[in-house]
């Protein structure tokens, strides 16, 4: 019976493979003769915190993606999980700068190791002596093929800003006064055969940096009678939280019932998809035996799942609080770097920054606009992101987007697939990810930071390649012969469809 069902299925699969693979491999026999891989970090910069004892904003969680191309004729084939199996290749990654020993010896990261099991019950941060992220990926390992997004991914690797032996790389200031750190650790991505031989490799920046929260919150704590330390800051934040409509001063929450306060995860009550959850679980569902400590002015009946997302409460409060505006920054709705990494670190550093005076708010809207447009109620959703053709809903960009379908003087056809959302969007041949050619979001090629440009400079570094005036190897992947053996070695703008 099973066999009867299986035979038609196999036949269909075979037919499908013939349709899909045959054109790409017309005239080819066997596996590709060579491979190329391009990788990127999914965002321009991941935020990290120097402490985890009080509460968690974001865990160590960088996601690296890659596309792999197999060569054997004029047109390459996209290597996916199916043909990777056929050809006996694997795709893997390894952080180049973050190592097991340095991470586990880092006093800040040690806090993550200590407190993350309380923040994510059941999570084990170190397994067999190796650090792992909350999605199960460590600082090295195999990448998985994402059949929806059509790329190889390593989700949530525990990248963390490090005190680099090469002090020139330590550009990020520690808001707590510690040593400067390197916020741009690199990750290597490999294509290997079944013997472990490297067939192709590349490197991408895995940016992760401390945000600017401490620069205001330490003095805020001090001004209100608390120590100017993370602990004092958390204590005063808890008090402030207790003064809002929730009544919950989270200093009085003992999640595990061990007699000590915290640590707490904001997303227990405020939905945060950055934690991989589609809804806030609620504290009682995470820690059923949690305790409200003596002295609290609220009860368990008050500990509810909030109707507001974490992004919403965080952004809305800061942009609308007269205390923030009058005592810290009157321009906070536009000054993203007040909170997002700007401590000598550039989250936003791509070609938009190099070529124009385009600001974050042109694409995303300022905080007042984002609030008014409801963007913050659906944080991290593709629907709230800007595309190449239009800014996010509610934003009023000062500059025209690529809406005229003319880029650099070349007219492109418009279609729903062209210039969609940059992150996870695909263009060329319907297969190539935007970020494969253009680099990471917020660090689009050519980036203002040399390190970002290293990958493309290497990939397009052949002396046989030529570039028109004003362009060079740091520009988006555009030398046709890089992928198509019979085509020009002069850089151009490939079809985006």
């Amino acid at each position, binding site marked *: 019976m099973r066999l009867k069902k299986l035979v038609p299925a196999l036949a269909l699969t075979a037919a499908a493979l013939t349709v899909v693979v045959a054109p790409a491999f017309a005239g080819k026999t066997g596996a590709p003769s060579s491979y190329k891989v391009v990788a990127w970090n999914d965002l321009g910069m991941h935020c990290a915190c120097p402490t985890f004892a009080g509460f968690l904003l974001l865990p160590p969680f960088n996601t690296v993606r890659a596309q792999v191309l197999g060569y054997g004729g004029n047109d390459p084939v996209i290597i996916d999980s199916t043909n990777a199996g056929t050809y006996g290749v694997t795709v893997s990654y390894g952080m180049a700068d973050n190592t097991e020993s340095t991470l586990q010896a880092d006093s800040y990261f040690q806090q993550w190791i200590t407190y993350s099991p309380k923040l994510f019950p059941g999570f084990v941060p170190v397994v067999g002596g190796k650090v792992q992220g909350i999605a199960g990926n460590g600082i090295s390992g195999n990448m998985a093929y994402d059949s929806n997004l059509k790329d190889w991914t390593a989700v949530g690797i525990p990248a963390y800003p490090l005190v680099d032996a090469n002090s020139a790389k330590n550009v990020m200031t520690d808001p707590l006064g510690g040593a400067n750190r390197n916020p741009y650790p690199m990750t290597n991505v490999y294509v290997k055969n079944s013997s472990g031989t490297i067939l192709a490799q590349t490197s991408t920046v895995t940016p992760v940096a401390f945000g600017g929260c401490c620069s205001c919150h330490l003095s805020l704590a001090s001004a209100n*009678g608390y120590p100017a330390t993370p602990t004092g800051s958390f204590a005063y934040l808890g008090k402030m939280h207790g003064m809002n409509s929730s009544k919950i001063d989270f200093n009085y929450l003992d999640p595990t019932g061990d007699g000590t306060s915290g640590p707490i995860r904001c997303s227990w009550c405020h939905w945060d998809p950055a934690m991989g959850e589609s809804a806030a679980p609620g504290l009682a569902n995470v820690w059923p035996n949690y305790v409200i400590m003596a002295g609290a002015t609220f009860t368990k009946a008050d500990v509810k799942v909030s109707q507001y997302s974490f992004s919403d409460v965080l952004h809305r409060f800061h942009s609308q609080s*007269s*205390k923030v505006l009058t005592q810290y920054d009157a321009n906070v709705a536009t000054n993203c770097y007040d909170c997002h990494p700007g401590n*000598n670190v550039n989250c936003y550093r791509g070609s938009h920054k190099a070529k124009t005076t385009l600001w974050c708010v042109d694409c995303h809207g300022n905080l007042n606009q984002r609030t008014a447009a409801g963007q913050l109620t659906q944080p991290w959703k593709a629907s709230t992101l800007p595309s190449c053709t239009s800014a996010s809903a509610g934003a009023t960009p000062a500059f025209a987007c690529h809406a005229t379908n003319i880029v650099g003087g070349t007219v492109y056809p418009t279609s729903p697939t062209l210039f969609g959302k940059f992150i996870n969007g695909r263009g060329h041949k319907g297969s190539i990810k935007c970020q494969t050619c253009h680099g990471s979001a917020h660090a689009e090629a050519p980036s203002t930071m040399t390190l970002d440009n290293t990958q493309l400079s290497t990939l397009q570094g052949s002396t046989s390649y030529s570039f028109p005036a004003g362009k060079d190897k740091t520009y988006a992947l555009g030398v046709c012969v890089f992928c198509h053996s019979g085509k020009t070695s002069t850089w151009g703008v490939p079809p985006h469809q």
Partner: protein
Amino acid sequence: MYIANNILRIAAALTVVAALAAPALAKEKARQPKAKSAEFDFKKTNAFIREMEGRPDFPVATVIANDYVYTLLAMGEKIDTGRQNAIILAAKLAQQKDGGFTPDKSSKTSSILYTDIALETLALLDAGNAIDRNKVKAFAASLKNHDGGFGFSTDARKSSLATTYYALHVLKAVNGLDAVDRGKTLEYVKGFAKKEGGFGPEKGPGRPNARSTYMAAYILNALSGMDAPTAKSALQYLESTPYLDKKSKERPDLDEQLYTIRALKEINAGNRVDKALAFNFMKRLYIKVNGGFGPLEGYGSTPDSTTTALRILSEIGKVKGVQVQVAKR
């Protein structure tokens, strides 16, 4: 016919705006020679601030317009007539029916903070009369609370030291201090005094800071309520900060540096400003690559922090382009 009428109305409105702004536009601000400094490349600073000229929505927002105007004038740079015009027009459009100003054109809720900032910008351009000053006074007065303090906006009415300061600052600028209940406001402000000396942003426990000390001192002076013991205790506190105490282990902060200088001047202790300490701090905040200044050591430059740095340099006589006007933020 309908369209033609509307075109005529718009043209007439633009003519009125241009006429109102004309006196200010006639006065180009380049009274002093351009600032020079061996330590800072002000050409780069100039270019950094002028980056916003490339924006089609120039001057973008109330705060950003202020950054642009103050910084350039502080360096003795010229602002061309067209941009002055644009800034004045933007300020006029930011003034709401209630007389207050908004942070940008996307907002319709005016507040005392942005009103103060807009007034300073207009004053720097000698265009203070381009807006309805009576309405400004009415707006600020409308924020007065029973406790003697003033609120932020009609939506956020709760008093604070900062919002009370901004209200007093605005009222003084429009000759409207008669709207203040002097006794109540003095009592309200004195409630922010701290045992260490100086004033803090909150009543009750908590440390003082230079910003609040300056704000309180300004209000006390504006209402002729400053007394010797208060000034003495403020000085006592300020002497403990890293802006006067070289041995302090506290990390200095750009805003606090500015407000320390201003607070000292408000308590008639301007001679106690440690100009060398302030200047060295500015050198540490200077970002050579773009000529801007960061808010903290090791941080990148922003227009806001660069403007604050220029205010400090102006206060200690290191740039001569513009007289210190009024305090903001």
